[in-house]
């Protein structure tokens, strides 16, 4: 996981609510046993037609789309299946952050564990962002703020633990393994209880 402290990029907007993980990565790509090689699978049924040709009218295929590291989407983004492949595919496609007024629980947890910054902003700000695709945003994890081109800035909530992991580029497994003694004690006490 690469450390992420600041991010400055234009946004790509998917102006739709309830974008589920089957859209982000269709199930037929899930037979892989690897994490890599999923960039092509990201939004595959939106980006490609039945013959495998790029659809010109899909904003994910527009010139410059691949430079947009911030994805702005409607409510309940990432709902549905728990597949972490959705996060891997978004990252490999080039996104470093996802902004929505409401993110699905499992998606958000998966994203933050992989260094993909998944944040919720207030509904009016997200509504504005949805209407203004391509604006450049400045995201700072240090003070948990997103700054718009006009200088207006909006705070977001991020679990302090997830924030530390993101900023330092570490995952949570090391932290968990350092708790082995506590876990063992819990196991002993439960064995006694039943």
């Amino acid at each position, binding site marked *: 996981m690469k450390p992420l402290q600041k991010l400055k990029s234009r946004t790509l907007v998917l102006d739709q609510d309830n974008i589920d993980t089957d859209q982000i990565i269709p199930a037929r790509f899930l037979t892989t046993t690897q994490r890599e090689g999923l960039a092509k699978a990201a939004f595959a049924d939106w980006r490609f037609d039945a013959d495998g040709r790029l659809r010109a009218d899909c904003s994910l295929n527009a010139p410059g789309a691949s430079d947009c590291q911030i994805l702005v989407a409607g409510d309940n983004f990432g709902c549905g299946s728990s597949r972490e492949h959705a996060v891997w595919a978004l990252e490999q496609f080039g996104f470093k952050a996802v902004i929505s007024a409401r993110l699905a629980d499992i998606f958000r947890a998966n994203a933050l564990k992989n260094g993909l910054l998944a944040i919720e902003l207030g509904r009016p700000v997200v509504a504005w962002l949805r209407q203004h695709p391509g604006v450049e945003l400045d995201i700072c994890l240090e003070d948990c703020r997103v700054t718009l081109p006009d200088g207006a800035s909006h705070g977001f909530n991020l679990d302090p633990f997830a924030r530390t992991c993101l900023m330092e580029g570490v995952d949570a497994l090391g932290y968990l393994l350092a*708790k082995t003694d506590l876990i063992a004690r819990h196991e002993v006490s439960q064995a006694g209880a039943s």
Partner: protein
Amino acid sequence: MSQTLFEKVWNRHLVQDETADAPALLYIDLHLIHEVTSPQAFTELQQRRLTVRCPERTVATMDHSTPTWSADLQGQRRYASEQAWEQVQTLMENCDRHGIVLHDWDSPNRGVVHVMAPELGLTQPGMTIVCGDSHTSTHGAFGALAFGIGTSEVGHVLASQCLLQRKPKTLCIRVEGELGPGVTAKDLVLHIIGKVGVDAGTGHVIEFAGSAIRSLDMEGRMTVCNMAIEAGARAGLIAPDQTTIDWLRGRRHCPQGEQFERAAEDWLSLASDPGAVYDREILIDATTVAPTMTYGTHPGMVVAVDQPVPMPADGTAARALEYMQVKPGETLQGRPVDVVFIGSCTNARLGDLRAAADIIRGRQVAPGVRMLVVPGSEQVRRAAEAEGLDRGFINAGAEWREPGCSMCIAMNGDRVAPGQTAVSTSNRNFEGRQGPGSRTFLASPATAAACAVRGCIADPRFLDGEPEVCIHFPSPRHMEARP
């Protein structure tokens, strides 16, 4: 102090409570794994030279990528791709290497993970259960705190038997009154999701309570909790009661004899205390529920089968109607159906197959309709075959397959063709869920079977009345590009 069912289970499993800086450490009693979401977790373990902390608390099955055709005379199975076969092989190797019990092709208990585990009595009240699969919420029907996790978390549980979690909020959905004749648990849960919305449960654990929930059998309760995730909640819960205890008694992995009675006493004490406080409560009237189906592209777009499809509320809904080729203001009845799928962890238990078989009995699958019946597990398959349900389906013109996820997720080669209309007893009607360009209408097993014999969407309550006229749509346009 009064506690909810959720709080009781949560507190029993706290290894370390949450603070402002760090999430809680929650102990996991049972970790279910399958071939799709585990390989990368095992790779991570290997790279870090870690072992599985509690192989005895880990149980594996193979269900998503597995073919539902029987093996040929040489014992060969028709996998959808080399990669699908490799994925299943990888699971076998990983389970072997780490000493994890795997219900593979030779196991008499293999099945869809959320059908198999309860059957074996692995799922017990008061447990914490996780699986790299969002429909883990199913096990909440027993009063277990059960939720889906991603692959990184699968790795965490393999390595530490714990998860880092923030304590979710609680939402109580109380369903009072009696369900009408011909109305099932599936209709109820679709109705609920339609009422509360697909993100009502975000950040919450839903406890389903009330007289209508208490009068459901365990299969119906599993159907309801299965779809809690479709309301945005990671977990659904139902308090254990005598129905739960009776269902579990004698199951293979449950305590036996005297020990079972002691466990049962403890399980009954898990129910939410009188006066326990939830963060939110919603009341639903069971008497108003009719056979219900989805008409759009998420499980909250539902309508009673005899009611007109509502006008789209926004652009997203309008696009969904266009994708589905559904006209607002008209009922779904009479729309021609290409495929009927009876299967999945939502509705492929014995009771579901019986409900479908009851409708099919003495009738035929309509010409031009493909009906696929896929039992949820080997146990379900054997029980159904012992009752002759398989022959009933086959004689009516349906296909009877081996257990697996099959057309629910369309990873194994079983899928709906582009532009086709499928009535499905599964849980997701997302665009392309059952194959690129497929159109899915979710329904109960009875409704799905009624659609199969009519050849168009039909109300199972009035199958012997006047036949609906099937309206023929022009052949569907090619899907338009998305934003």
